[in-house]
């Protein structure tokens, strides 16, 4: 028992939590944004992979780290455009298109990577983002190493989640997005172009996913490897549900999930495999399903989620 407490009381755990959470936060708010407008984007796993690859490749070729982040955002946006063209313009089934985008984006990322980076014995590296030294905060006991010793993208992710929460709840464009996700016909009747809103939300959301992927190669690690996203995108899809489509809760959900993961890794050193690690990994999925069952009654799911909108069709 005290061993568990020791784990929770260590600054290292909390530092790990924020670090593990960062790509999840970005991916989740990206998925959330597009779902709020009514489009499920199962392309996320592939988009994160592509973002991880293209961000890294850009920096590897000599660009600044932030240019890498930008490249990942653009790369994500590109696949967002593809997904919107298929699901918004043509109105194809969103989950099928999303699975297609995932397959395409990830295999395309691997292929391009292999073409651009000659096969070497050890994976080539870049110099990743370094933890920011925030005067005053980083040197606080416990809190410093726990929360104020992160790289810039982590703070960016948290800031973006808060900003998105504000935008969705408090601004005209947020209202337009919500209306489009609830009833695109109603949006159109109010002079809001639901197609444009959906395109915008999917593209911006995909850009966030791309940046989430890039965090893995530009901050959490310093190389790109195929399959390195390892299902994090699917976790984000679960987290959106868990967060009941609210960015501020997505932030908490991602942190909670990261806590599980970080805790699990530390628990191994204590429990040494008494509880299979798979159990820990299942928990966030199962919790999301439970959350969904509880929430579905309150009908907080965007009502037009996954429903194509075709102008002039009833």
């Amino acid at each position: 028992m005290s061993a568990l407490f020791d784990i929770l009381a260590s600054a290292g755990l909390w530092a790990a939590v924020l670090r593990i959470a960062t790509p999840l936060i970005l991916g989740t708010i990206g998925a959330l944004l597009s779902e709020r407008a009514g489009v499920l984007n199962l392309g996320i796993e592939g988009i994160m992979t592509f973002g991880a690859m293209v961000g890294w490749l850009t920096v590897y070729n000599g660009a600044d780290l932030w240019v890498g982040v930008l490249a990942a955002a653009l790369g994500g946006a590109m696949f967002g455009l593809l997904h919107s063209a298929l699901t918004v313009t043509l109105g194809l089934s969103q989950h099928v298109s999303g699975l297609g985008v995932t397959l395409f984006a990830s295999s395309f990322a691997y292929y391009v990577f292999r073409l651009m980076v000659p096969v070497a014995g050890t994976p080539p590296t870049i110099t990743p983002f370094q933890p920011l030294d925030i005067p005053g905060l980083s040197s606080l006991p416990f809190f410093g190493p726990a929360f104020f010793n992160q790289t810039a993208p982590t703070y960016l992710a948290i800031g973006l989640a808060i900003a998105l929460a504000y935008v969705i709840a408090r601004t005209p464009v947020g209202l337009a997005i919500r209306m489009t996700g609830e009833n695109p016909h109603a949006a159109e009747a109010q002079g809001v172009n639901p197609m444009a809103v959906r395109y915008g939300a999917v593209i911006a959301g995909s850009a966030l996913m791309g940046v989430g992927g890039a965090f893995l190669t530009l901050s959490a690690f310093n190389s790109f490897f195929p399959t390195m996203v390892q299902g994090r995108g699917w976790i984000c899809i679960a987290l959106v549900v868990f967060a009941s489509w609210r960015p501020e809760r997505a932030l908490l959900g991602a942190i909670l999930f990261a806590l599980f993961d970080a805790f699990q890794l530390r628990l191994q050193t204590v429990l040494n495999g008494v509880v299979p690690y798979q159990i820990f990994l299942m928990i966030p999925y199962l919790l999301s399903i439970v959350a969904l069952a509880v929430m579905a009654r309150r009908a907080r799911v965007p009502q037009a989620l996954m429903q194509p909108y075709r102008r002039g069709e009833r």
Partner: protein
Amino acid sequence: MRFERREHRSTLLVIATPILAVVAALAIAGVLIALAGAPVFQAYWKILTSAFGSRLSATETLTRASPLILTGLAAAVAFRARLWNIGGEGQFYLGAIAASAASVHLFAGLPSLLQIPLLFAVGAVAGMVLLLVPLSLRLRFSVDEVVTTLLLNFVALLFVSMLIDGVLKDPAAFGWPQSEAVDAAARLPKLLARSRLHIGLGIAVVIAFLIYFVQTRTVFGVQSRAAGLNPSGAVFAGVPLGRTLVIVAMISGGLAGLAGTIEVLGVKGYVTTDLSPGYGYSGIVVAMLANLNPLGVVLAALFTATMFVGADGMSRSMGIPTYIADVTVALSLLSMLVAVFFTQYRIRR
């Protein structure tokens, strides 16, 4: 620009559009192949020969198509009734692990003719059970099943990983996480010696015909379609909604479970966490390509398998990165989806 639903489709259109789609996909893939410095047309030729140019390639293509037909049918049946089962992958794995465990621990020693059908049943039931969970959540709490079935895939995979790392772990596998190999009598007979092609292909095709028959000719087929298209209208017409969806879920989950069973009994003999290269997910795309028509699923599965095996083999003989295979499959699937759309809609100003 807007799209108008076509009420009539010309044969020319139905034939020409998919061909155009393949051409488009290959053209884009061609650019990527050229980027790798390989001669593009030779690569196309290699795709063809790697998929069908030899006994080995043809049997490999068919072997790969077999599970895709079943997972494609699983998706098609469910989607027909508007049950969005994205959980084929999880059901596949659960079917595989249940059947292999049953073969090792329950039915070992039974003769093939008895054991194999029993294992099919066990695997199918496992798949069913996994789909009945999200279905009951939908019926009881109206929880949308897209996300729940998707999430259960990961739960199922972790569960399988836990089993093959724990109670079902093969002690003779040198610590490698895999299940014990199934009984020799449980292995599916091969269709051709010196190949991986097994009778699973025949089973899958027969099932496709069966399902086609059920959907178009039977009362249940009409009712399940009605239930999917307009639940309250179906209830008004006396269709037992819950029961219909439960049966649909049992068929769909059962087929995905059966796919896993057949793959493990036909190809590998034991379960690992890489038993399926995404068969459950590809099945969904296969079903959409086939426009949810069970017979179309057979063709769509063949098409998907051809593209993969062909491009994979091409990458090996041209010495370009293996990942081109998945790229080509993805491109063909996406362009085929667009093509199917344009057989249903026309562009209007």
